[in-house]
């Protein structure tokens, strides 16, 4: 009994295992979530970094305003004190001495000048420097500025009243009265203290503060030289146009605030590159590391867990495949207690089913076997009475003719014939016995046919040790006699041959009778013969095929008027194999 293989082929490549599927999906979601959350985080982070940077810039500008105001206030105070003191002096020498002393002791004051209303220098503090005799344009004399009386500081300019000396100063002056004359008291201050102040205020690493006036011109800049030589340009239109205190540009943040003189403004510039982008880079780096770890950990976890889930499933599917291939030899597993409930239930049910199916298969097999045995016996017995009657009839005829010797031989042959037929009730007998049986049959028949035919047995190879079906040759010989020899004229010849082949034993029974057509030879094997004699051949064929499989059995070669050869092919089975039942198909 064989389980039929299904024709379909498995397309395994397009199938995805549970574990791969789960790992892929989970990794995909982990990465998706990580990417989304980190981009949200990054944008929040950037925003807050921007806020902080802006606030920072603003605060630093406020600080700068405080410092610059402190400086300008102290200058203003100095000028106020000077103004008061100078008003009290009564001689020119006192005044001269006083301003010289003041200028000398202060590091910020370049010089102190007293102009008359026309801009003529009345007094000037100087050490060794000579005043130019012919000054065409005195840059320190700025009466409009002095007349404001608000102690405003001028924008930086060159002090050009001394010979061979051109110093950058800024001027602060006030109208006053000395010795009854209206004059301007003017102080030229070095610009570097203020520049140093500004220089020290830094926003981030490269950010800075600078001062612009009401006309949006740069007054002080920590990189004044770069500004003066045109190497650096500030976008003053942009800064002038600022309506709010702060302005965010693509690469920089501006913040500005008025000084308390109401005209100057301090502008702070910070660079987003260093304040924000670098921080962002750091944050991205951290995020990437975290993302990496998260991904790796999640991969490992899903890997482990998916294996836990998929392992029993895979085992189950392997088992099913196994069962599919070899249903009868499949041994149910017993390790279904562990793992996931649903899967173990599935597994148990499967095993249950397998056991049931195997039981059923076994039962069907058994039933079929019994059925077949019954059938065979029925078929064997079918032959006997008919033949027996004929033989006995012949013997009776012999006895009547007083051929007692012949009758004795015939009775002997018949006895042997029956002895083999009934031997142990086994289906297989040794080939020798079978040949013996056939010989006995032919002995009997040759009496009946009055020597109208001759017969010959030949065997090739070592065939004695093998087994064959019981009463296999006799029906075929019978067929040859009835259909070949009986109806022909002249002497008939029957040759029985046994041949050992590589994997099988081949019997052949040939006669030189009338032969048959192709249709007949096919019909004989197909049971369609209503003729009672035909049953014999079909019976032999069926028995062999049932017993050994489809590749064994009968084949017929026949030619009209020449004769017929019937071949019987059976496997090589020794007595031992038969007794131990190890010759399975």
């Amino acid at each position, binding site marked *: 009994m064989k389980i039929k293989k299904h024709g379909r082929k498995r397309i395994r490549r397009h199938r995805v*295992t549970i*574990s*791969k599927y789960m*790992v892929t999906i989970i990794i995909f979601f982990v990465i998706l979530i990580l990417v989304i959350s980190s981009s949200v985080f990054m944008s929040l982070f950037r925003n807050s970094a921007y806020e902080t940077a802006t606030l920072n810039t603003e605060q630093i500008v406020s600080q700068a305003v405080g410092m610059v105001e402190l400086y300008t206030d102290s200058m203003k105070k100095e000028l106020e004190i000077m103004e008061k003191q100078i008003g009290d002096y009564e001689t020119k020498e006192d005044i001269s001495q006083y301003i010289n002393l003041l200028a000398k002791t202060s590091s910020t004051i370049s010089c102190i000048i007293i102009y008359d209303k026309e801009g003529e220098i009345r007094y000037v503090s100087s050490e060794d420097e000579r005043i*130019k005799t*012919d000054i*065409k*344009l005195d*840059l320190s004399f700025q009466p409009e500025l002095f007349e404001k009386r608000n102690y405003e500081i001028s924008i930086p*300019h*060159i002090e*050009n009243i001394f*010979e*061979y*000396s*051109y*110093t*950058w100063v800024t001027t602060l002056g006030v109208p006053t009265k000395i010795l009854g004359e209206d004059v301007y008291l003017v102080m030229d201050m*070095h*610009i*570097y203290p203020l*520049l*140093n102040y500004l220089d020290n205020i830094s926003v981030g690493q490269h950010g800075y503060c600078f001062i612009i006036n009401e006309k949006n011109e740069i007054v002080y800049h920590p*990189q*004044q*030289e*770069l*500004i*003066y*030589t*045109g*190497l650096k340009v500030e976008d003053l239109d942009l800064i002038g146009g600022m309506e709010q205190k702060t302005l965010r540009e693509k690469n920089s943040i501006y913040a500005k605030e008025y000084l308390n003189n109401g005209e100057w403004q301090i502008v702070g510039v910070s660079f987003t590159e260093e304040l924000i982008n670098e921080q962002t*880079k750091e944050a*991205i*780096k951290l995020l*990437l*590391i975290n*993302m*990496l770890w998260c*991904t*790796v950990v999640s*991969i*490992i976890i899903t*890997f482990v867990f998916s294996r836990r889930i998929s392992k029993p499933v*895979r085992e189950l599917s*392997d088992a099913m*495949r*196994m069962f599919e*291939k*070899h249903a009868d*030899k*499949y*041994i149910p597993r017993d390790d279904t207690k562990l793992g996931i409930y649903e899967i173990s239930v599935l597994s148990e049910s499967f095993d249950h089913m397998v056991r049931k199916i195997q039981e059923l298969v076994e039962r069907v097999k058994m039933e079929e076997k019994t059925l077949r045995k019954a059938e065979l016996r029925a078929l064997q017995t079918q032959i006997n009475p008919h033949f027996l009657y004929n033989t006995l009839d012949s013997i009776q005829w012999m006895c009547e003719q007083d051929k007692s010797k012949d009758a004795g031989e015939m009775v002997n042959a018949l006895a042997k014939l029956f002895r083999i037929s009934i031997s142990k009730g086994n289906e297989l007998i040794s080939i020798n016995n079978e040949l013996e049986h056939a010989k006995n049959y032919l002995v009997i028949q040759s009496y009946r046919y009055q020597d109208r035919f001759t017969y010959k047995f030949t065997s090739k190879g070592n065939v004695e040790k093998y087994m064959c079906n019981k009463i296999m040759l006799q029906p075929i010989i019978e067929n040859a006699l009835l259909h070949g020899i009986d109806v022909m004229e002249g002497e008939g010849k029957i040759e029985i041959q046994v041949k050992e082949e590589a994997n099988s034993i081949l019997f052949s029974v040939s006669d030189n009778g009338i032969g048959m057509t192709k249709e007949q030879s096919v019909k004989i094997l197909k049971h369609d013969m209503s003729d009672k004699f035909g049953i014999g051949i079909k019976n032999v064929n069926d028995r062999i095929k049932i017993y050994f499989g489809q590749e064994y059995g009968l084949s017929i070669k026949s030619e009209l008027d020449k004769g017929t050869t019937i071949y019987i092919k059976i496997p090589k089975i020794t007595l031992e194999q038969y007794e131990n039942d190890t010759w399975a198909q």
Partner: protein
Amino acid sequence: MKMTHGHSKAGEKRMKNRITNLLCICLLILLSVLMLVACENKNSSDASGKIRVAVITKTTTSKFFMIVFSGAETAASEYNIILTCEGPDNENDYGKQNELISKAIEDKVDAIVISAIDKDNSTKILEKAQKKGIHIIVIDSGINSDIVEARIETDNYDAGRKMALALIKEENYEGRKIGIVNFNSDSENVLGRESGFKDTIEMDGRAEIVGRINVDSNVTKAKNGSLDFIDTYPEIDTIVTFNEWTTLGVGYAIEERDLQDEIKVIGFDNNVISVAMLESGEIDGLIVQNPYAMGYLGVEIAYQLIKENTLVETDIITDIMYITRDNLYEQASQEILFPLEEDK
């Protein structure tokens, strides 16, 4: 028997799966690590020592080059560069300048910023430097070679042209007798200035260049030379001269002969004395260059070249300005004439 065979087959498959999965993970990790490394590399600035740049000028004594140095120093501190500023005492001494170049090569600087005294005689040694991977940047005055990677200079021909145009613009220009006091030099820039000037004057044709002399590039010799020149060509009413020292020399000569009103002088470059002479009338006009920018840009571009920034601008013309007594104290003139640096 058959069962075990089937099992081992499935096991093989499982092994294969596991290997592919492991491979995937390894790949992922590798990728991320690579990404991180890439990030790291981008951020890391050169930890392996600072950049070294040598600025070698024609001389160290002139105001012009002092301002060049101050510009270079500003850039160096901004870009965190180790800077050396050197030059011979004498502006004709190319031998000394070549020695300084050799020294810079020995010091293994990354770039040399040079203002060449002689356009031919330093080429060899600079080529040697270039072969050793040193970037060559020229400021102010170049050399006759294509090894130069960047130039930052005044358009000298244009400067000469501007001097001429300043004269041409004047009302009583026609029929002027012009004298040229130049100095002995093979430096590219001085030759350019003179030809720019001459070409423009000759093209206009209304005035004539009466004579020219070459003097040594120092104040005393320039002054004596100018005195001789004035005596030789008494008809001269305009003198044009092309560097800081000769300008002073001519100025002193005019002062000595008291010819402030008779002879118009247009000079080149500025220092405290020439500005004072401009105020008091010995000199009537000065072409002022932007040495601070030269120094600054020279070092900045050196830095960019070393960092292999592909967006380096390699030919930069710095501004010049024509200063007269009238615009001397305009804000823009003040800013370019008087460097702030030395006040500190």
